[in-house]
């Protein structure tokens, strides 16, 4: 059964995909036909050519109930554009991810300064600092201890 067109809402997203939030604007609803036998995780959607689409980088497909980012620029095929999409797993499941347990390797908020940080670069050499305690022995003004055998107290 041939694929049927599905609605797609295009967005312009300015947030990097490794951020948990998205800044979406310029919503544009279009219709596209997914290529058959393509995993909806990374679908390829064929749409009518529209130069404006080339300025978009993000979309929502209600059919799959997922947001997608453009994996690469759309390719032109005749009078069509092929959108190469990649499911935005981080954004799609953000709420579940946020309440999931993790052990942080590195963090900007919860960290331990006493853990060795390999990102700290060592520079050649050492700096030396000395500090003396106040008491001074006086080998120049010492005393003699005479130990003798002696009767009586």
């Amino acid at each position: 059964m041939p694929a049927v067109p599905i609605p797609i809402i295009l967005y312009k997203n300015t947030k990097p995909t490794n951020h948990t939030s998205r800044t979406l604007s310029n919503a544009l609803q279009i219709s596209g036909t997914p290529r058959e036998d393509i995993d909806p995780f990374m679908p390829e959607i064929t749409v009518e050519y529209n130069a404006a689409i080339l300025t978009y980088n993000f979309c929502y497909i209600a059919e799959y109930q997922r947001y997608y980012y453009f994996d690469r620029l759309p390719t032109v095929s005749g009078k069509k554009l092929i959108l190469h999409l990649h499911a935005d797993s981080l954004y799609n499941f953000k709420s579940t991810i946020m309440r999931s347990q993790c052990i942080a390797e590195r963090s900007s908020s919860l960290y331990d300064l006493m853990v060795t940080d390999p990102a700290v670069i060592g520079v050649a050499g050492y700096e030396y600092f000395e500090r003396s305690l106040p008491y001074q022995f006086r080998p120049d003004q010492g005393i003699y201890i005479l130990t003798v055998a002696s009767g009586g107290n």
Partner: protein
Amino acid sequence: MASAKDTLNMGSVISFVLPNTTQDPDMCNNAIYVTDTYTAEIGKEIKQGERLSFQIDNIYMKNGAITSDDVTGTPISIPDSDALGYQRQYWIESGACTANFTLGSDFNPKDDHKLLVAAFCVYDYGWQGTSNIVNLSFLFYDVDTGTITGQPLNTQSQYIMGVEMAQAPPLKYEICNTGTSTIDTNTLAHFYGAISYGWGTIGYARAIKAAGFVLATSLASNIPIFDTQAHAEAYLRDNTILEGLLNGGSDIDPEEEYKSQFDTWTIISTTGHNTRDSQAGGLVNRNYRFKPYQKGISFLMITPTADSPYNLRLMNYSGYDAYTAGRGVTEEDEFVPAAGVAELYLDRSLSWGADNYYTQFGWKSNIPRFKTEQECNDYFNGLLDISAAANYAELARQDNSIIQSEWEGADIDTETSLGTNGMQYGHGCRLYAMSNIELASLFTELFDPANINDILDGTKLFGAASDCVAGIMYLPITDIEEVGNAGALANIKIGSWTSENAEGRRILNNSKLIDCGSFVMSPSYKDFRDYEPYTMLFCMLPMVGFKQLTLSKYMDVDNPKTVSVKYAIDVTTGATCAMLFANGLLMDVFEGTAGASRPFSAIDNNNYINQVIGAVTGASNSASGSIAGINDAVAGAAKGAKIGGAAGVAGVAGVAAAGVGVAASGIYQGYQIQQAVDNPPIMSRGNLSGNLSYYTVDKITFMIAKKRTIRAENELEAIGYPSGHGATVGSFSGFLSCSAFKMADGFSGTEAERNEIIEILKGGIYID
């Protein structure tokens, strides 16, 4: 205003949950709601200062919108209007009833990850006048952004406080009527109540018209509770301003050691602002803004009991000093309803309306929880071990748990006990402390021909006068009193011969230590670089030598230690030991020789040379060795002592770089290589002994060798710092890379998506 101080009883701390727009049974959609049910005399006017108490029997949470049909009980009659012209006014008609409110369409949490914070304000309202109404203002704390947004409920909204009616009254709220009982004529819905979330904020009900009543709740907390927002804000700006304080605050004086044990957060309002609700035409709504405080705070809780299953108290360790942002306290243990009390809570599986579920009242906390107040106090006072906590098993499993090890607590030493030398010098053996001049005077007398016969006579028991002199030793101190007690100048007695002119101070004992002083070992970086191998500690000890010290014995980044040194010198042998202390605890002992023998005879000289060589090289020459051989041995020993060394600094275990924002692994490897070729600071072999040591240091000198490092100023923002903390992803902010990740229940994605999420988290994300 009548003081509410006397009426605030020990009440409950209610947890809250994350609201979620999805029908996720794991997450309650809304806050905990408390309904009130009570009987009040119809028509009873609540005067200023009066209060009504009522019992709240249960607490439950509702997932999804709550409607007035959801809670059983006699609904309050809602007339269209009354004689006063109020279009919607709730009052008790007769008997027990439930005030039902439904969250309307304006209850609209915007994001998934918000905490519902409800508070309401105290206002001075004019009855039938133009004053303002108390509203339940639902506020949301966004754990991702750390901001609070207000969602004041307008008069079109209905709110439900869900409490299942039951027999036992575990909760009791009471709020003082703090002002005149007035109602804004424009108000359509009047509801007064207080919901405390343990954040130190509480609102006060306002009395309404004679047919109305004060919704009274009581709350006990040693978190300061103020009568007005202004007073709360004033206190938050200056902790000495306690005007308007209602509950007296903390009555617990915690031990200092407990203050930083727990990592809980509590939100306290810092500023608030009033906004005008134009729809209400002059209605003033106050939006509380909450700000998390960074300073740590400690809490204990009293666990629910069968008699009062919700009678919990959050006890504040640190009084007014600091409050940190909190997300409430949740416990996930099963809660057993008290006997005879039907359905104190409702199991999750029970449906409450279509697609709505009750969520179990859960607790999970790393706060120790005890069954009684007495147990809490005993724990505070060190009379009860933390293992008696009801949730100790859970605490023990947690990372960075607060389990008190056997090396902590009151039994550990705070100071090392040192012995005292009780040896006395007297019968048969005398020690004299003499100056060079005094010694010269003695030998002048000894070798005076006029005295020879007397000397021989007095020393014949020992065979020769020289045999009576056990030794003459030079010590690098100016006063014998530094190491022992001595008498006044007296003639020298050798054998039974007593000098006529020569004098010396008779040494009585050798009981003193030389206190060489102290200093505070302060960190430079306050991070891992303050310890080996980035920082190394050496000590140059007079008469002992150069010693490398284990830095962590003397360094505490958070609590700088006082490092001190004491010397003991044996006046009979010249042996010495240097004792190094950190905060009064003995950490290291090094031995050496302080005394330099002044040879008195050939045998004595040979013995002395052996002593020196042995100390320096560990070798010795025979009593008949040639002078040349002795000199060669000494020279060889000098050559053998090396300055510098080739021992490399242990490389730092690198973390495999991966993903976004993490430095390339080549940098890590380069650092390790660099460390391997760097020479460590000074090393020396052997000990400095006797006369030889007098040419080196005469003061205890500590040397710190610090590795120069570069830490990018934007490292925290870009790639964070090493962590190891375990929590929900949402607990973090900024950059986060995970070494382990456990997907929560309810994930509806594919396996490929799950795997990708794991990889993304390992590489690092920015939570914003």
